[in-house]
């Protein structure tokens, strides 16, 4: 057990020998969902890029080059700038966020996956992702800030003992909140109308939306 405690203090990618401190089922479920989430978010980026190509009839770019990624979608992004500089500026402002997701996508889809570490913050809170300074900088540029819990930031960054870790749940909820803001403004710039201009209080959806706002627990 003493060896296990020492291992945990250092942080360990290997759960063997850690005994009751770690449940392998937690590790599997958490990393299954966080890696799946990354692939879904890049799917949403691709949906936005394809909708843009369709909206502006951009047909000169190969389909696999229609992307918000700077490396694979460079020609597409130049074309977007020609057709709609305001939309291109919106993409540029969110570049750290887009880069952050594509950096993770390459790891998850093409390389070794997230680097896992078991290193408790508190009891039963131990499954983290090891990140580097570049990722931390991207997260910081996505408006990360300190949380009420001090050791961990709003986006889940934990900077301690010479290593930077990321909590998957904190990270996931902030990423998805940021993504919905990004996509909503993106569609507005593409000319989509807000449903708030068409509200009919007798409509079943609007009634359910109003009910939801009163009855949900989620703030």
């Amino acid at each position, binding site marked *: 057990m003493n060896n296990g405690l020492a291992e945990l203090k250092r942080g360990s990618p290997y759960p063997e020998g850690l005994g009751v401190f770690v449940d392998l089922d937690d590790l599997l479920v958490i990393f299954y969902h966080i890696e799946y989430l990354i692939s879904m978010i890049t799917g949403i980026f691709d949906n936005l890029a394809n909708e843009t190509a369709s909206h502006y009839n951009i047909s000169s770019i190969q389909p696999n080059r229609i992307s918000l990624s700077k490396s694979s979608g460079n020609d597409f992004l130049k074309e977007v700038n020609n057709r709609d500089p305001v939309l291109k500026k919106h993409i540029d402002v969110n570049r750290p966020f887009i880069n952050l997701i594509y950096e993770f996508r390459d790891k998850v889809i093409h390389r070794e996956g997230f680097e896992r570490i078991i290193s408790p913050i508190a009891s039963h809170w131990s499954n983290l992702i090891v990140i580097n300074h570049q990722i931390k900088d991207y997260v910081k540029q996505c408006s990360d800030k300190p949380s009420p819990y001090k050791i961990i930031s709003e986006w889940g960054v934990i900077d301690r003992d010479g290593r930077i870790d990321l909590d998957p749940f904190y990270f996931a909820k902030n990423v*998805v909140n940021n993504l919905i803001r990004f996509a909503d403004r993106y569609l507005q710039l593409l000319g989509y109308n807000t449903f708030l201009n068409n509200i009919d209080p007798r409509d079943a959806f609007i009634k359910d939306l109003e009910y*939801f706002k009163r009855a949900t627990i989620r703030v």
Partner: protein
Amino acid sequence: MKLYTIVHSFFPYLRVANTEHACEVLDIFAKSKGLYFGTRSRGALTSWYQIYLYTKSNYLPVVYKNAFRFPPKRPSQTIQALIFRFLKAFFCVDYLGVQHYFGYSRKATI
């Protein structure tokens, strides 16, 4: 007594610092038991995520209960895929939340 103090008394192993966090814990706990507060039946999983999406987005075309509402015409396949991916993304975050707060290694339940 503040909400987060009450939540802490039910889940003493959780650190809950404010009301927003307490609401998140309660919402995720309810979902882990199959309860989706905010829907009329309290059990409508897909409807919960569909409505939640439109509390966050004003410009996505509204697809609700397999019908196209605003505008009342079918969006492109790409936009339909985007909307469905958002539902899956929210669902995924809540699954991570269940694991984060009430995972397998927490043996005690209320």
